[in-house]
């Protein structure tokens, strides 16, 4: 598979409103792509489209070799989306939320504990209803779902929002681990410098289109800090 994501002139609508107005984008295997742009530029729509949640009306849209216009459910089973909101049920605790999400996705239930541990949700935090967790902790629980699912394509919508420096470091580690495991990552951000440092390519969006593409410095950074380094400030 040459491209994990291949969009050519992709037009997508959210209800009656245009979400993407002819996007051209490709993401290769093991590549990390950041998406930046002002509010309403189409960053979230791009990620939701790649996740098979926004219908593509025209153009070419292939994710993981599957035509998004024909079979979005098959795409959903293989990609992982961390939305702007954490997709958690307030009344359920972290353990129950992650267990439900993994079972719904058909992932092995024995990954729940290790996934939560990996994101630093341990001890009594696993048994606390997520309504009682801080925004950052809820974000970590949502990340645990991705860690447990281990999808082939990670789609992260403003993953740095609301995270403290420690959690940002963890996120960088998780992205590096996902890429090392063969996954590709596309994430949006309102922080171009941080996004550029974490990605191989940076896509700037405006008006539902790709306005510019620049090289990111992830590989350079990683080589500078040595193998296994994930030091993205």
């Amino acid at each position, binding site marked *: 598979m040459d491209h994990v994501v291949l969009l050519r002139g992709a037009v997508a609508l959210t209800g009656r409103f245009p979400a993407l107005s002819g996007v051209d984008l490709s993401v290769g295997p093991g590549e990390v792509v950041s998406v930046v742009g002002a509010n309403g530029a189409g960053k979230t729509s791009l990620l939701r489209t790649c*996740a098979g949640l926004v219908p593509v009306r025209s153009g070419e849209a292939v994710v993981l070799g599957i035509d998004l216009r024909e079979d979005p459910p098959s795409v959903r089973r293989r990609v992982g989306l961390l939305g702007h909101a954490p*997709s958690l049920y307030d009344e359920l605790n972290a353990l129950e939320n992650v267990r439900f999400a993994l079972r719904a996705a058909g992932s092995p239930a024995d990954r729940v504990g290790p996934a939560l541990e990996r994101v630093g949700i341990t001890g009594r935090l696993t048994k606390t209803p997520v309504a009682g967790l801080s925004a950052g902790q809820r974000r970590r629980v949502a990340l645990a779902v991705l860690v447990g699912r281990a999808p082939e394509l990670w789609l992260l919508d403003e993953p740095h929002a609301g995270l403290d420096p420690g959690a940002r470091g963890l996120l960088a580690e998780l992205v590096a681990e996902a890429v090392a495991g063969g996954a590709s990552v596309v994430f949006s951000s309102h922080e171009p410098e941080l996004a550029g440092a974490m990605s191989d390519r940076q896509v700037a969006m405006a008006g539902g289109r790709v306005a510019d593409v620049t090289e990111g410095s992830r590989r350079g950074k990683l080589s500078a800090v040595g193998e296994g380094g994930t030091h993205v400030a």
Partner: protein
Amino acid sequence: MWRDALLVAGKDLRIELRSRVALWQVLPVAVLSLVLYAFALGPVRHTLADAAPGLFWLAVLFSTVLATQRSFAIEAGEGTRDGLRASGIDPAGVFLGKAAAVAAELIALQVVLWAAMTVLFGVHVRVPWLALVASVLATIGLAAAGTLYGALSAGLRVRETLLPLLVLPVLAPVLLAASRTWAGALSGSVSDGVSWLRVLGPFAAVYLVIGIVLYGPLLEAG
């Protein structure tokens, strides 16, 4: 599909047990409505006994709307609806799971309502199996149709007021047939009651099939 249905039903019931919205809001409203009906009809025992089946199912009908609204309020949290879709879970399984959870709540509610009706209206079921079969079929129909129309209105801003408007006329045949069957069960007239089961059974089956087929497109459209 069945695995997903069990998963969703378990999740919805667990959330309901934690939040106790059904226990502290839906159930009291249903019992209160029975008490108010009794006030409205006056203290004449035989009037209350005659009206009991219809009032019972009217209370269940309104509770169905509340339980369905609650079922979709669970998914109205930040990103949870998207999360469910993005998980790749079978939409038919989601429909069956949500309907099963609503049905379980309605069955529990009917047990309490039946006890309340016995005390308030002084009625007794003479043909328990007939009442039981009617309750099971009617509950499946109510839960299936309620869940289907709940999904239809879930994505709309006016869903709280739209859902009763959409679903109450649709559920009218269940109200009629279940009331008549229960009237037969209370009076001991089995043949009268059984004939109305022919409405309840197909209604439940039709809405289960429609829900299984259409729930996916409804989720997508929402």
